[in-house]
């Protein structure tokens, strides 16, 4: 296990405060962005999982700058504002981090389609878990279709999110 970890390139040191805070700031923005009212019929139930997108990107490229405590706080913050059961988003973001960290070596310095495929699998799993968790909490068989649509939208919009995060990351930290 230790050998595999050391086979990854060491993360370059970032001294710039703005750059150090950027992963947390973008994930908070993603959380706020996902609850803003957009005037499109039916959007609220189909909002892409922006927070998961940011968490995935930063867990692959800068896990040191988006620690689990930040994911926990952002997830709880999002649930409080969305009026959802508190802890659900935090739990999913943390589990996503755990899964991505254990496969991280396969994604660093890989071509984008590979990273996208990884995100597709993660989104499928995360939103399935999200649905199952809500079914248990509400003790009812909830409609899975809206969550399936959310998953499709989330995966479809990932290239744009990843491009924006990657660009700002290069601009602030100088590495991809």
């Amino acid at each position: 296990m230790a050998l595999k970890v050391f086979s990854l390139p060491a993360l370059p040191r970032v001294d710039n405060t703005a750059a150090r805070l950027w992963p947390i700031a973008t994930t908070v923005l993603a959380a706020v962005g996902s609850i803003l009212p957009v005037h499109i019929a039916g959007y609220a139930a189909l909002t892409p999982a922006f927070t998961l997108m940011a968490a995935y990107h930063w867990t692959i490229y800068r896990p040191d700058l988006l620690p689990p405590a930040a994911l926990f706080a952002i997830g709880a913050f999002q649930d409080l504002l969305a009026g959802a059961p508190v802890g659900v988003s935090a739990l999913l973001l943390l589990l996503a981090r755990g899964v991505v960290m254990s496969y991280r070596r396969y994604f660093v310095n890989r071509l984008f389609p590979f990273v996208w495929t990884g995100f597709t699998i993660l989104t499928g799993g995360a939103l399935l878990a999200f649905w199952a968790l809500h079914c248990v909490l509400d003790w009812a068989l909830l409609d899975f279709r809206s969550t399936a649509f959310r998953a499709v939208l989330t995966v479809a919009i990932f290239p744009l999110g990843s491009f924006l995060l990657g660009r700002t990351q290069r601009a602030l930290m100088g590495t991809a």
Partner: protein
Amino acid sequence: MIRLSPQLRALLQRTTLPFLVLASMVVIILGKADQSLLDSLRRTVGDAVAPALDTASRPLAAVGNLVDRARGVVAMYQENLRLTEENEKLLQWQDAALRLAAENEQLRGLLRLVPEPAISYVTARVIANSGGAYVRTVLINAGSNDGLARGQAAMTGEGLAGRLTEVGARAARVLLITDLNSRIPVMVEGSREGAVLAGDNSERPRLQYLPASATLKIGDRVVTSGEGGVFPPGLPVGIIASVDSGAVRVEPSVELSQLGYLRIVNYGLADALPKPVPVSPHTGRRGKPATDDPELH
């Protein structure tokens, strides 16, 4: 900053994630066991973030208005024809309403009827929605500072949208009538059959507890019944959209998936919400609250 030994730091790094996963689960279970536990935290966070959400949601609202306006320009001719026709009809209704109001006034005078409580409105903007979660709620930019209180009805021009469930100082949460936890006492206009409108997160909530003898047809109007004392009777809620093997579904009058502004209506009935009732020393049983629980869980 405290310098930690490398071993301790490695241990901390290894245990943080499992610890926080466990903490999330504990928070979920605690929140489920006692929903009021996190209510004050919700209100505090809502109040703190409301100004930022208010600002951030303005450009989106502006874009929405622009799109609506562009659509309006395209459909102007058709719309004008429709409105002219509607206006003629409404003038006839106005005439009828004026006559009825005068007659009503006279009859009330004869009966010495107690006047209805004064109605006050607060108009608020939707600043956040539920963001894909399995809940149907919105956050609005008004709270107890503006005179809002738990239980008040949230409406648009078309009808009932929901009711206030959490009220902070600057922000309040509206539980929409489509939410899984929403229960509204209603009646079917015409037949006057009482029922409960139960949300199930779908676009069309269901009518529950309908009398077996109820005769319903698609298109019947559903209005609040006023039972439970939270809403006054007669607020438009929707129309019956389908009647399939016992499941009666209602199409809400309000387009709930793109709410812009909500009118919060205070009918002076908010005091009717049940408050914690002390145990009666004489009977040893809980005294009966002033009204039934409107949530009807």
